[in-house]
């Protein structure tokens, strides 16, 4: 069995472990041995704020930790893009470049990995629990009803750096989830790392546009492949009192409806 | 202008250095010719256009031109009689090919007094439905000051792409008209709330008469 080193990414690690567990389950179901070695940050925030030396330090730690595995899989287009797309750039004048390039070839975003490498056929697993399996149905969760309107947000880095567009949709379709596309799925949600904090007002407006687009298709749930986007959107939606829920695609694929959606209160009882 | 020529010298030195070179070459013309040797005379490298006439008509229409196919110039008179308003003047370009024709409307050779203009295209380009006219053949005013511009295109003068047009006109060092106008449809603007409005400062209408061979 081939090995996968799972890199959770900071947002997942710190804010939403359920995405990590869902991803690991999906990878194990796909027939891989999953390892979660000691990990921290990919260095994107240092890189984007002009401190390449710090980014390189963190990058090398990551590379040396993960290179023993056959694949490195990340449930994020943003961190995935940083590693696969930008690590070569970070090391372009460094003698370690060949090793970096070898490593980067084995790096994948989760949905892309499941579709292209694992060729996972998820038709057997339905997102919405069937009538027999009453143990998994949560009647308190209206989203377990097939009538819930679900839409998808394409994260910028996922789309433009990792080529993630059809993969999550293919997987969702295989699970019986119909995606109601909103307009401007490919327009930035306003996260952008420190941008969302340095330019909070502009970022909030961008998030508002995205939320309005989701509401315009009567969406109940917005799914995405990048937790940072979802934290940003969910946070803004809650502040606005918008009636919209947010989940990571890994959670939806694995059928986790127990965990409260992002920013939602813990279930009582 | 000493400081200017001083700056000019410094600028060239800076550019050469930025390009990893010491200075300008000894023989500028020879170096230039050598550099363009590979590309001069080359085609566009894009997909060939099978039917230039059809493509020209389609693209000219998309650019908001009105198209007519005629066998002789005198057929244009029918349209002129029907469409030119009373009191309007037509300015016909003094191009030899247009001279034999008798025009059925009032003409003028002052662009500032003409509401309609008529000229013959040097060459027409199928890929965009464009016509090329130049300053040795036509006055600027005829092309830009009139309300309606009529351009006659000889079918044999339609080429597929721009590169062929330049080659057919033998454009190169020392060989070019002082002003060449590649015109594609009427003038237009979208400066008011991005709403397209045909007819800005140049002609409001462009009528193209394709003259069969």
């Amino acid at each position, binding site marked *: 069995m081939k090995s996968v080193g799972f890199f959770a990414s900071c947002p997942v690690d710190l804010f939403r472990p359920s995405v990590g567990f869902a991803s690991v389950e999906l990878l194990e179901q796909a027939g891989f041995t999953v390892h979660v070695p000691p990990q921290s940050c990919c260095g994107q925030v240092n890189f984007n704020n002009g401190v390449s030396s710090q980014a390189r330090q963190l990058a090398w730690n990551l590379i040396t930790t993960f290179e023993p595995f056959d694949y490195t899989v990340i449930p994020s287009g943003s961190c995935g893009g940083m590693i696969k797309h930008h690590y070569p750039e970070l090391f372009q004048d460094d003698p370690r470049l060949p090793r970096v390039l070898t490593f980067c070839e084995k790096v994948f975003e989760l949905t892309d990995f499941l579709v292209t490498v694992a060729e996972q056929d998820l038709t057997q697993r339905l997102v919405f629990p069937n009538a027999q399996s009453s143990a998994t149905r949560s009647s308190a969760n209206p989203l377990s009803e097939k009538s819930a309107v679900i839409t998808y947000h394409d994260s910028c880095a996922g789309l433009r750096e990792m080529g993630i567009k059809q993969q999550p949709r293919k997987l969702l379709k295989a699970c019986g989830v119909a995606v109601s596309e909103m307009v401007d799925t490919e327009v930035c949600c306003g996260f952008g790392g420190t941008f969302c904090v340095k330019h909070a007002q502009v970022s909030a407006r961008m998030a508002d546009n995205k939320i309005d687009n989701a509401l315009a298709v009567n969406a109940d749930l917005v799914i995405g492949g990048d937790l940072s986007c979802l934290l940003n959107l969910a946070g803004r939606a809650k502040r606005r009192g918008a009636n919209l829920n947010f989940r990571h695609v890994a959670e939806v694929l694995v059928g986790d409806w127990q965990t409260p959606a992002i*920013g939602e209160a813990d279930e009582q009882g | 202008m000493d400081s200017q020529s001083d700056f000019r010298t410094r600028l060239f030195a800076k550019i050469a250095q930025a390009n990893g070179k010491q200075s300008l070459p000894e023989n500028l013309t020879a170096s*230039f010719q050598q550099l363009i040797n590979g590309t001069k005379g080359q085609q566009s490298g894009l997909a060939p256009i099978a039917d230039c006439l059809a493509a020209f008509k389609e693209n000219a229409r998309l650019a908001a031109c009105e198209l007519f196919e005629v066998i002789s110039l005198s057929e244009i008179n029918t349209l002129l009689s029907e469409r030119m308003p009373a009191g309007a003047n037509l300015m016909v370009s003094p191009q030899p090919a247009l001279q034999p024709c008798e025009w059925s409307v009032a003409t003028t050779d002052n662009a500032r007094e003409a509401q309609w203009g008529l000229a013959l295209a040097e060459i027409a380009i199928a890929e965009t439905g464009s016509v090329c006219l130049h300053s040795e053949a036509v006055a600027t005013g005829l092309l830009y000051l009139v309300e309606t511009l009529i351009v006659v295109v000889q079918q044999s003068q339609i080429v597929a792409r721009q590169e062929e047009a330049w080659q057919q006109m033998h454009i190169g060092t020392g060989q*070019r008209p002082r002003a060449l106008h590649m015109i594609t449809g009427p003038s237009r603007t979208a400066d008011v709330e991005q709403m397209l409005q045909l007819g800005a400062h140049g002609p409001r209408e462009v009528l193209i008469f394709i003259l069969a061979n």
Partner: protein
Amino acid sequence: MSNHFVVRTQAALANQQLQSALAKAGGGFVARRQAAIDAVDDFELMRDQAQAVRKKSLADLEIYLAYFEQQVEAAGGRVHWAETTEDLRRIVIELCQQANAKTIAKGKSMVGEEAHLNQALEAAGMTPWETDLGEYILQLAHEPPSHIVAPALHKTKAEIEQLFKQAHTLGERDLSAVKAIVDEARAVIRERFLKADVGITGANMLIAETGTAVLVTNEGNGDLSACLPRTHIITSTFDRVIPTWEDASKIIRVLARSATGQPITSYTSFFSGPKTAKDHDGPEAFHVVLLDNRRSEILGSDYREMLHCIRCGACMNHCPVYQTVGGHAYDSVYPGPMGAVLSPLLRGYNQDYELASASSFCGRCEAVCPVRIPLPKLMRKLREQEQSVVPPGLLQKFALAGFTWLANKPGLYRRLTGLASACLHRLAGGRGRLHRLPLASGWTSVRDLPAPQGGSFQSQYRRAGSAKKSAGK
């Protein structure tokens, strides 16, 4: 230290008229460009060709530029060299004075805007008349442009109506239709071409082989300004020179498609020197004024690719930040993504570095740039360069350094982040989110913070793993 861009964006967000104008413009450019690209099979090849032309033009620029000058002068024209914008203003004024110019017809020129040419001409006692509709509107409003292709994009129809009614004494009339506004501009501006002593335009490209200035427009005013007055002055920059007409065609093919979604503009004109005996008309004097303004520095720097820009505006049409705040927030005649890179390089204002941070790095600009300029990469480079010019806030510097130090120690990182996650979870008290958090007001000023689930993934996975082991699995 306050961020000037942030202050301007707050004003922009609150400006209802601006937001209304932006909403009207927004989707149109994007949709029209996409339609233009969908209509051809080979747009990617066209992009490759255009990029190759810009690259090779710079690689031997000293030769092409010298040849261009030679050709212009062989035709009886003159080339002038302006190191700074002040030099450009001085040269143009001198040329206008030599031509006894009282009135000047101006076609759109970004270089003219960059050099604040109109003000200088007015100060020298001359009357520059803008003839491009967008620029004319701005001249009436006394405002700078907010977009490099559609300069009055920030103006609503109602505002334009008002400006015309105030500026033109034409009595009672209905200007509510776009056609009426454009027709009135046509009538008012017509006299300007016919009367002007000098015409000043920009140039989209300069062709070396024939000493030719290429003008790409839709309205016709540029051509009239170039051909009717006795003197034609072209204000451009030395890096616009390309080798041949065939090369020009490569750029022409991607320019209008990227800018306005047209396969080509109504007028693509090629001007090579003054009127000769063979011509029906044309200017007696033909001057090309070439500006540097630090571009020669850029050429020899890591930002060289920025000089590939063909000024199509696609980047700002697709930029979510530009679409939210408009061009004036950038406080430069070059706004949006290309402006975020070019403005600090040209002006050397420390403030301009803020523009490189005003990006979420979504990458849409790079994706639509017809000549594939790596704009986010260049902005990132500016962020790096900014550190030595404008020292970062101490809080940011130490937070980043501190976090990095911790991140280099995986064991300690896991324990501390596990603790932090658990604490924040408890702080949220089961509500799932936090309204406020010390030191996180940048986030919580506009959003709630979804609470961590309690314990980091790594700490939970470790525990789950040891639970598995102890259960003998």
